[in-house]
């Protein structure tokens, strides 16, 4: 797996990206408000991590 600059991902980056992907998937699930709001808030934060590290860049209406 490579980042947006063409570098191999580090082990930490692979795990961070997996967390991001899992939160994206969960945000599409019919969760109770208590879970849905927390997942959206967490996704907004993890998207900054993966975006700043140049792993992915995905604008999203979240």
């Amino acid at each position, binding site marked *: 797996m490579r980042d*947006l*600059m063409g570098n191999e991902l580090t082990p930490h980056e692979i795990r961070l990206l997996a967390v991001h992907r899992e939160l994206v998937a969960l945000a599409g699930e019919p969760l109770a408000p208590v879970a849905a709001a927390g997942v*959206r808030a967490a996704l*907004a934060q993890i998207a900054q991590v993966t*975006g700043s590290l*140049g792993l992915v860049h995905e*604008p999203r*209406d979240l």
Partner: protein
Amino acid sequence: MPYWNPKTETLSRDRLRALQLSKLRSVATWAQARSPFYRRSFAAAGFAPEQLRGWDDLRRIPLLTRDEWMASQAQHPPYGDLLAVDPARASRLHTTSGTTGADPLRALDTRSDWAWAAELWCYAIWGCGIRPGDIAYLAFGYGSFIGFWGLHYGFEKAGVLTIPGGAQNTEQRIRQLVAFGATVVASTPTYALRLAQEAARIGADLRGSAVRTLILSGEPCPPQTRALIEDAWGARTFDTAGMTEIGTIFLFECADRPGGGHVIEDHLIEEVADPETGDPVGYGELGERIVTSFGRSAVPLLRYRTADLVRKVPAGTCSCGRTFDLYEGGVLGRTDDMKLVRGTNVYPRAVEGIVREFASVGEFQIRLFTTPDLRDEITVRIEAPEDPDLLGDLRRRLAAAHEGLRFQIERVPGGSLPRFELKARRVVDARA
């Protein structure tokens, strides 16, 4: 660790370009898919995001002006059709300060956009040496103007104890920030001076306080003003610059303080162009900032003409190791704030720089008017104690810096000129 994001802040310029191009493609694709405004403007320019193959393709994207955004807002109220998300998905509404007298722009943000605004402020917070354990005081009225809101969230994110100084007068803020042991204060340069003047009046000892860092934003800040602020506070100042249109900052000064600020280039593209011709200008040349922001999904901003005047210099100008280019001296002014007086260009920032060489001057105002025989005149009104040499010295310094242009200097009573907490408006152009 001096860097918030060591991976990108020290990236080679080639890799940085690759990162920017990749983010540019995704944001242009997003804008095309989601924003009616961009669909129209891209079509009119014959541009499609798929054309972004190399760096030079950036210039295929049409420029965006504030007038176009305002027109869009007027035609498609309340937010205009630049918007790329359903307003029901947004979580914040902020506005511009409205200092130009026009209707303020209304800018929506999603949760993710707002997290991005804080993220960019963190580059500045960390970069100037603020760390968990610091105590930050925001001397700012928490209103609909975006101001220091993003910094507030940036402090929280960076693990800094954050004290909101809203809904208080200047004296109350001074007493609070001293009593709470604030180590960091954020305000505009104008307001940092005003806090210092008020502290002197009430006998509060800022130099003896815990404050060691001031984060300044919101206005161009000439070095002479910074020197006055640093002397009054006994603290180091760090310049930042942002704008409501991107929702956050684009520039921060690192701990090495090279006399300018680094552009946050992993999240933005900053071009500098001749404001008349639109042609790009090189390092060291004065030009207008054109910004493309990657982080705001509700209002993607592609090649927005900012009217800010800057001078870009290469990253190597600073010794901190960052590979982000810098704007020497920060934002130097606005393309629209230059005044022509009897054939001479007068920039308010340059006048301020000279006025601030005279430490006894408190507040000041630049007034332009037309005499009955239709001659343009420029008067600098100052609040200052009686001093037989001051008026003449100031007049000579201003004339020498402006091709001999005659300035009138008028001493006015202390406290008679307007005070500013946010963007100062010190130029009154009353010419016929």
